[in-house]
């Protein structure tokens, strides 16, 4: 593992020599004039107050080739207008606003405006089907939804009347269906200034959803204090400096796109590039080149797609503006790190975090030697360990041992709750540690290496998918008696979802039914979550207590040792 270390001799670190640690980072926050702390104020308003209102905050690249720039002052105005729209509609602090849209400028105005109004923001991925959307909005008790007309008609209209908490639906654009309000005219009519609500550091700000192995998705609660970590980790792990041109390819519908595609870059006063379109080889290289991107934060799946095209596709391009490349989502194999160096002239820096940590915890930073494949070392202020858990007893493991990755609680962006599920939240902590659910190993140089999940969650294109949610959707189909869902390795996505189903009497296994079931799952769940492959079985392996053994299915699928089968029911062996 050590033979391919990428050394950075002479690199003294690109970060300004600022004191590290959370206390120092907290002291760098502006705070609200009347006391309190608010993410939107740190992200936008403070820069305007400090005289940087003319600096470009956002360069938005539309699908059809449009290019629109927004200064920090523009964003502050749009956020104020949006906050005023919410107030005019009677939406108050603490209420929950959900976002369901592609990457359009209004998404940024809505996020910042809601935070400014003390309203909690919960982003949803626009490629989710109606069921994941509805489940998350129900758990989060949505008061407001900001979406597009197409999304509304496809995913919301049918069940809107069944969700009494949902008081307001704002439609991006100039027209809106019945019962909704068009955001364009509402924003245009709203006053351009708005006093930021005096949120306190421990007031809820963000609600991110993450999948569980069993049961419903979990609503991960983050507070305004999280901004301390958003700002600091962007500086430390992504090498963000004021004025940098920065492109985060993650969608704001996921936690990376919110923490590092909206909040952290704005707090660090960079110029963000946002592309509305999906991955496209030529388009991406053109954006890097033409926009003179300096810091690029992307994901292994995207890097592998660039690699598939070969280095030829990048020939003759000018990537000289690039200064720092980072990746998150799943371990970045050595080939990807080295490919970055060969084709883009810089290695990728992998880092690790999850919805619950709210921000980057472990990283290969600018001034560190990179060990390709390793997630890096804990950032200043982060104490990590590898532990073995036995009930409530947690034992730290030595270097080289595989165990669960654990963190000492107390960093500013640590989740404060799983919304409405205190027992589930409590189960994440033991022996003074937050237990991440990821298996990892620390080497003798202090680098951490991801090994796998400690549970049955599937990691596809960097996103966690809960098998239970997929199984539930499959079982809704009249043909399906039972379903088990696992992740199988995929060279591009890391893992893809595969389902095993048994059928009810009267249904015939075959290609036609396989397609019908995949179509059914895609309609309900969306393509990012639905299985890519479904196979039929006469029975599924279960424990004596009746629990389906996904792990055994996976072991069989991959030809791995099956482990202890003593608890398995006889007929399914």
């Amino acid at each position, binding site marked *: 593992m050590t033979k391919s270390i990428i050394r950075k001799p002479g690199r003294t670190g690109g970060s300004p020599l600022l004191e590290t640690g959370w206390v120092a980072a907290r002291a760098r926050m502006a705070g609200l004039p009347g006391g309190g702390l608010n993410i939107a104020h740190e992200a936008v308003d403070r820069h305007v107050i400090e005289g940087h209102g003319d600096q470009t905050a956002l360069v938005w690249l539309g*699908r059809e080739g449009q290019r629109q720039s927004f200064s920090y002052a523009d964003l502050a105005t749009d956020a104020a207008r949006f906050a005023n729209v919410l107030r005019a509609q009677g939406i108050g602090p603490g209420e929950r606003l959900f976002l369901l849209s592609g990457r359009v400028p209004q998404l940024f105005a809505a996020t910042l405006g809601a935070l400014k109004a003390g309203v909690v923001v919960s982003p949803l991925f626009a*490629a989710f089907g109606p069921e994941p959307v509805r489940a998350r909005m129900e758990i989060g008790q949505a008061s407001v939804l900001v979406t597009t007309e197409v999304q509304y008609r496809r995913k919301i209209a049918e069940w809107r009347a069944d969700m009494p908490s949902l008081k307001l639906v704002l439609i991006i654009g100039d027209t809106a269906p019945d019962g909704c309000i068009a955001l364009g005219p509402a924003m245009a009519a709203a006053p351009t200034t708005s006093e930021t609500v005096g949120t306190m550091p421990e007031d809820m700000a963000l609600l991110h959803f993450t999948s569980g192995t069993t049961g419903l998705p979990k609503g991960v609660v983050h507070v305004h204090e999280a901004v301390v970590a958003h700002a600091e980790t962007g500086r430390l792990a992504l090498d963000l400096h004021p004025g940098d041109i920065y492109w985060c390819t993650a969608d704001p519908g996921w936690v990376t796109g919110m923490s590092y595609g909206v909040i952290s870059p704005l707090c660090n006063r960079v110029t963000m590039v946002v592309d509305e379109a*999906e*991955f*496209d*080889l*030529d388009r991406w290289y053109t954006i890097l080149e033409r926009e003179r991107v300096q810091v690029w934060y992307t994901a292994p*799946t995207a890097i592998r*797609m660039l690699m*598939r*095209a*070969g280095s030829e*596709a990048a020939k003759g391009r000018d990537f000289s503006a690039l200064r720092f490349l980072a990746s998150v989502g799943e371990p970045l194999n050595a080939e990807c790190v080295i490919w970055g160096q060969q084709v883009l002239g810089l290695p990728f820096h992998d880092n690790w975090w999850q919805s619950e940590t709210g921000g980057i915890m472990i990283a290969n930073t600018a001034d560190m030697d990179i060990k390709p494949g390793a997630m890096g070392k804990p950032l200043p202020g982060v104490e990590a360990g590898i532990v073995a858990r036995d009930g409530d007893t947690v034992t730290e493991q030595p270097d080289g041992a595989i165990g669960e990755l654990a963190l000492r609680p107390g960093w500013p962006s640590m989740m404060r709750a799983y919304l409405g599920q205190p027992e589930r939240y409590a189960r994440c902590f033991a022996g003074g540690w937050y237990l991440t659910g990821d298996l990892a190993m620390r080497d003798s140089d202090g680098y951490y290496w991801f090994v796998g999940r400690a549970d049955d969650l599937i990691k596809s*294109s960097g996103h966690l998918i809960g098998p239970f949610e997929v199984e539930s959707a499959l079982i809704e189909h009249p043909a399906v008696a039972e379903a088990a869902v696992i992740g199988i390795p995929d060279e*591009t*996505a890391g893992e*893809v979802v595969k389902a095993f189903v048994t059928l009810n009497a009267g249904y015939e296994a075959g290609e036609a039914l396989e*397609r*019908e079931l*995949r*179509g*059914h799952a*895609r*309609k309900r769940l*969306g*393509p*990012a979550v639905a299985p*890519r492959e479904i196979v039929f079985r006469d029975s599924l392996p279960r424990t004596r207590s009746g629990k389906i053994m996904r792990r055994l299915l996976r072991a069989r699928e991959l030809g791995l040792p099956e482990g202890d089968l003593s608890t398995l029911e006889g007929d399914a062996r």
Partner: protein
Amino acid sequence: MTRDEIRAAFIADLTAVAPDIAPESLRDNDHLQDDLGLDSMDFLNLVSALHNRFGLPIPEADYPRLATTALAVTYLDQALAG
């Protein structure tokens, strides 16, 4: 192969990858990702199916030429003729 045959084959591969799409509701100018909701993994799977069916290399740089059914049929027609 005629254009109609190519079109039928393309739609067969498309709806195999994304069986939530009803062939009869498909319009030739629907954008596969923006209008029909394919994600990038779906798109790669579609390219791979087309590659296997037609025996054609489909380089990444050509992917935008498969953005709609109409574009894809033209692209495949030209590639097969070439």
